[in-house]
C-alpha cells in the first residue's frame, strides 16, 4: 500500500540572532502515521513545529499539505488547515469548564446570537467519546488531572477537524497508567486517519508508538527511519553521537560519615514517620508515584514545613529547619522539580542566578565585591561546562540542560554538605542528562551527600547507591547496598501492592 503524503516541509531554515536554529530541514509525514520527532534540546524540534503551527515564519523553505503548497502566516490559518498542536504546557483556562474550553472563541450560537449551550454540551460529549474518555463536560478544568486536561485538548483538536495533530512531550507529567491510556487514544486516532507527530525525550515510548522517526541534531535533519530499522542504541547514537551503554556513571565504592539522619519525621496529613539517612559520598534515590510525598519530604528538609515533628540531624547535630534560610545555613541545597518556576529567575542573568543564594557572602562592606562574584561565576561556568555566550545572558535563553547546571551552580556556591535533587533530568535531552549524572556522581565522590528524587525508574536504579521507596507519605521499603533491584520490585512497593496482601 502506497501511503499518501500528509505533510512535507522542504528545506526549512530559520535564523535567530547569532544562531541558526534550523538549517535546510526537510520533514515528511505520511497520512495516518505516528511520526516521532526526536533530538536533543536545542536540536530545533520546537522551532520546526512552531513554524508548522504558524507561530513562527521560516526564513527559507516551503510547506506542502497533501501536495499543495501553503503559507501558514498565523496559528488561526494552521487550525483552518487542520493542524493542531498540543504543547507541553497545556493551554486551557482553568476557571472555565470543559465545554467552554473546547469551544473557546468558536461558541455555537442559536437565534439572537445567544449561546446554545445544549448543542455545545452534546457535541463536547461526542468529541470526548471519540477520544474515549468519560469526563463530564461541565467540569471545571481546574479540577481535572493533567492527563484529563490533555484529553480535553485532544478533544478540542478534534473539534477543529485536526488532520495533523502534533504532541509536544505529551507524557512528561503523566503516570504509567495515564501513558497507557494516551497510547490507546493515539492508536485510536490513527485508525481514524489522523496523522500524529509525536515529540518525546522518552525513547522507549517512541519505539512503542511510532511508525517512523525523524532525528534532528543541531538544527539539521539527520534522517528519517522506519521504526523497524532502529534499536535504542542506534537511535541514541543518531541523536547524540554517543553510545547508550555509558549512560550511568559507576557507583560509589565507599562512603564517608553520616551527613543527614532523619528520625520519625512527620508533617500532619503529608508525611508519616519518615526515617532515613544519607552518608557522605553516596547518592540515595527516592522513588514514589505522584502523591507519595517524595517532593514534600524534600520541602520539609528545606524548611518549607516549619511545624514538622521528629528529628533532623545534620552532621551529628540536631537542627531545626524552620525556613529555607535556616536550611541553607545548615548546609542543605535543593534543586527543585520545576526548574523554570521554582529553580531559576528566568529573566535574570546567568551570573545573577549563580550568586543568588550567596548574595550576602559576596559583600565587602555594604556593596557586592564584583571580582569575587565574577570569579565565582567563572569557576562554575567552567567547572560545569555551562554553555552561555557570556555571564550576562538571560537564563531563559539557555537550553534545559544548561539551565539545570545554573541551578546546580547556585547550590554549589553555598558549599553544601547535603544536596537534594528533585527530578534532576526532567525535560533535559540525552546528552545533557549524562553530564548531569556525571556531575552528581562527581559531587558525591567529593564527599557530598546526595538525595535524588526521580520518577524515572531506570534513572533511580542506574544512579542510586541505595533506594527508598515511598508510598502515601511514608517510606515503605529500602533497597540497601548491593541489594538486587529491578523496576518491577520497586514499582510493586511504590504502588502499595505490599499492603493489600
Amino acid at each position: 500500500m502506497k501511503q499518501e503524503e500528509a505533510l512535507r516541509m522542504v528545506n526549512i531554515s530559520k535564523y535567530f540572532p547569532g544562531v541558526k536554529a534550523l538549517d535546510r530541514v526537510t520533514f515528511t509525514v505520511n497520512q495516518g502515521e505516528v511520526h516521532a520527532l526526536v533530538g536533543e534540546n536545542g536540536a530545533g524540534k520546537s522551532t520546526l513545529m512552531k513554524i508548522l503551527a504558524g507561530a513562527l515564519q521560516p526564513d527559507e523553505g516551503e510547506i506542502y499539505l497533501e501536495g499543495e503548497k501553503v503559507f501558514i502566516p498565523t496559528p488561526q490559518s494552521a487550525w483552518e488547515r487542520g493542524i493542531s498542536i498540543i504543547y507541553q504546557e497545556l493551554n486551557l483556562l482553568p476557571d472555565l469548564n470543559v465545554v467552554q474550553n473546547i469551544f473557546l472563541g468558536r461558541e455555537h450560537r442559536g437565534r439572537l446570537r445567544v449561546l446554545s449551550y445544549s448543542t455545545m454540551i452534546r457535541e463536547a460529549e461526542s468529541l470526548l467519546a471519540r477520544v474515549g474518555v468519560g469526563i463530564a463536560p461541565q467540569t471545571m478544568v481546574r479540577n481535572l488531572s493533567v492527563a484529563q486536561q490533555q484529553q480535553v485538548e485532544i478533544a478540542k483538536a478534534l473539534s477543529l477537524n485536526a488532520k495533523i495533530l502534533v504532541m509536544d512531550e505529551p507524557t512528561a507529567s503523566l503516570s504509567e497508567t495515564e501513558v497507557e491510556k494516551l497510547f490507546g487514544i493515539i492508536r485510536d486516532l490513527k485508525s481514524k486517519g489522523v496523522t500524529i507527530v509525536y515529540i518525546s525525550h522518552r525513547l522507549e515510548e517512541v519505539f512503542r508508538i511510532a511508525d517512523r522517526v525523524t532525528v534532528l541534531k543541531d538544527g539539521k535533519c539527520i534522517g528519517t527511519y522506519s521504526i523497524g530499522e532502529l534499536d535504542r542504541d542506534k537511535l541514541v547514537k543518531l541523536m547524540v553521537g554517543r553510545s547508550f551503554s555509558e549512560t550511568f556513571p559507576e557507583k560509589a565504592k565507599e562512603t564517608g560519615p553520616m551527613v543527614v539522619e532523619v528520625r520519625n519525621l512527620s508533617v500532619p496529613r503529608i508525611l508519616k514517620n519518615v526515617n532515613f539517612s544519607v552518608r557522605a559520598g553516596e547518592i540515595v534515590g527516592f522513588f514514589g508515584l505522584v502523591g507519595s510525598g517524595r517532593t514534600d519530604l524534600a520541602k520539609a528538609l528545606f524548611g518549607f514545613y516549619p511545624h514538622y515533628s521528629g528529628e533532623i540531624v545534620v552532621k551529628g547535630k540536631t537542627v531545626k529547619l524552620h525556613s529555607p534560610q535556616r536550611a541553607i545555613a545548615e548546609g542543605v541545597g535543593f534543586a527543585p522539580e520545576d526548574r523554570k518556576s521554582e529553580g531559576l529567575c528566568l529573566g535574570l542573568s546567568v551570573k545573577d542566578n549563580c550568586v543568588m543564594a550567596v548574595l550576602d557572602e559576596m559583600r565587602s562592606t555594604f556593596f557586592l565585591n564584583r571580582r569575587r562574584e565574577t570569579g565565582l561565576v567563572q569557576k562554575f561556568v567552567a567547572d560545569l561546562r555551562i554553555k552561555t555566550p557570556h555571564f550576562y545572558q538571560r537564563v531563559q535563553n539557555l537550553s534545559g540542560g544548561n539551565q539545570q547546571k545554573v541551578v546546580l551552580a547556585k547550590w554549589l556556591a553555598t558549599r553544601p554538605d547535603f544536596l537534594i535533587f528533585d527530578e534532576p533530568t526532567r525535560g533535559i535531552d540525552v546528552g545533557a542528562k549524562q553530564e548531569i549524572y556525571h556531575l552528581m556522581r562527581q559531587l558525591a565522590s567529593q564527599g557530598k551527600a546526595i538525595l535524588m528524587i526521580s520518577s524515572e525508574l531506570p534513572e533511580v536504579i542506574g544512579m542510586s547507591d541505595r533506594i527508598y521507596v515511598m508510598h502515601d507519605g511514608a517510606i515503605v521499603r529500602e533497597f540497601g547496598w548491593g541489594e538486587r533491584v529491578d523496576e518491577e520490585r520497586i514499582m510493586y512497593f511504590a504502588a502499595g501492592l505490599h499492603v493489600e496482601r
Partner: protein
Amino acid sequence: MLVALFVVAGIVSPIFYRPQNIFNVLQQASALGVVSVGQTLVILSGGIDLSIASIMATSCVFAAALMAGKNSMVIPITLFCLAIGALAGFLNGIITTRRNAPPFIVTLGTALIFQGIRFVYTKGAPFGSIPSWLRFLGRGGIGFVPASVIIFLFLALVMEAILQRSAYGRKIYAVGDNKVAALYSGINVPNIILSVYALSGIFAAFGGLVLAGYLGFGDNWAGKGYELDAIAAVVVGGTSLAGGEGGMGGTVVGVLLITILSNIVLLAGLPYQFQQIVKGLVVAAAVIFYSFVKVSGERR
C-alpha cells in the same frame, strides 16, 4: 529621545530655553522624581504603590501644621514625617505580604485611610505655614540648579548603586522576577517586599516635604495624581510592570520626559487639560515601544 524633546520644545516655544523656565521644569520634576524613585523599587519587586500621593499630601499637611513656620522645627518634623511615611509603607507591606493581598487594592485602600486621617486632623482646612528652610528645599537653588533636583538626582544615584551593587538590590530584582525561585534560593521574600513598601512610603513622605517647600503651605491635595504620574514615569523609563527588570536611570529620564512634556503643552498655550492627553499618549507610546523591544529580545 530626551534630546529630541529638547529640540521640539525649543521649536514650540523659545521660552523653553530661558534659564528661568529650565529652572522651573527641574523644580517641578523633583517632587515627582523623589516619589518615582520609591515607586521604581516597588515595581521592580513586582508590586505597585497607589498610596504615594496620599502619603505626600499627608506629609505636606503635617509639615505645615507642626512646623508652623519655625525653622527650629524643620529637622524634627521632617524626621517625624518620614517616620509617618515609613509606617504607612510598612502597613502596605504588612497587608500585602501577610495576607498575600494584591498590592493594587491594598494601596488603593490605605490611600483612602491616610487621606481620611489627614482630613480628620485638619478638619478639611489645613493650617500652619512652611518655614524658610523647607522653602529653600522646594524653591531655592544653587545658580541654575534647584536644590530639590540635586536631592532627587542624589537619591536616584544612591538607590541605583544599591540596586546594582548591593545584595539587597539584587534580591529586589530576584523577588520581582520570580518570587518562588527567590524563596527557594533562601531569600526572605516577605522582608524584601515589606522593605520596598516602607522605602516607598519614606520617599513619598519626603516628596511631600519637597512639594510643601515648593507650594509654601499645607495642601490637602498636594501631589494629587502623582501616584499615576510616578507609575507613568517608571514605565516610560523602561521598568517592567511585571517586575525584575529596569532601573533608576530610566526612571530619571521618564520623570524629566513627563515634566518637560507638560511644560511644552503649557508653553504652547494649550489648556491644562491637554497635559493629560499628552501624558497618556507618551505612556501608550512607551508601552508599544517596549513591547517591540521585548519581542525582538525574546526571538533569540
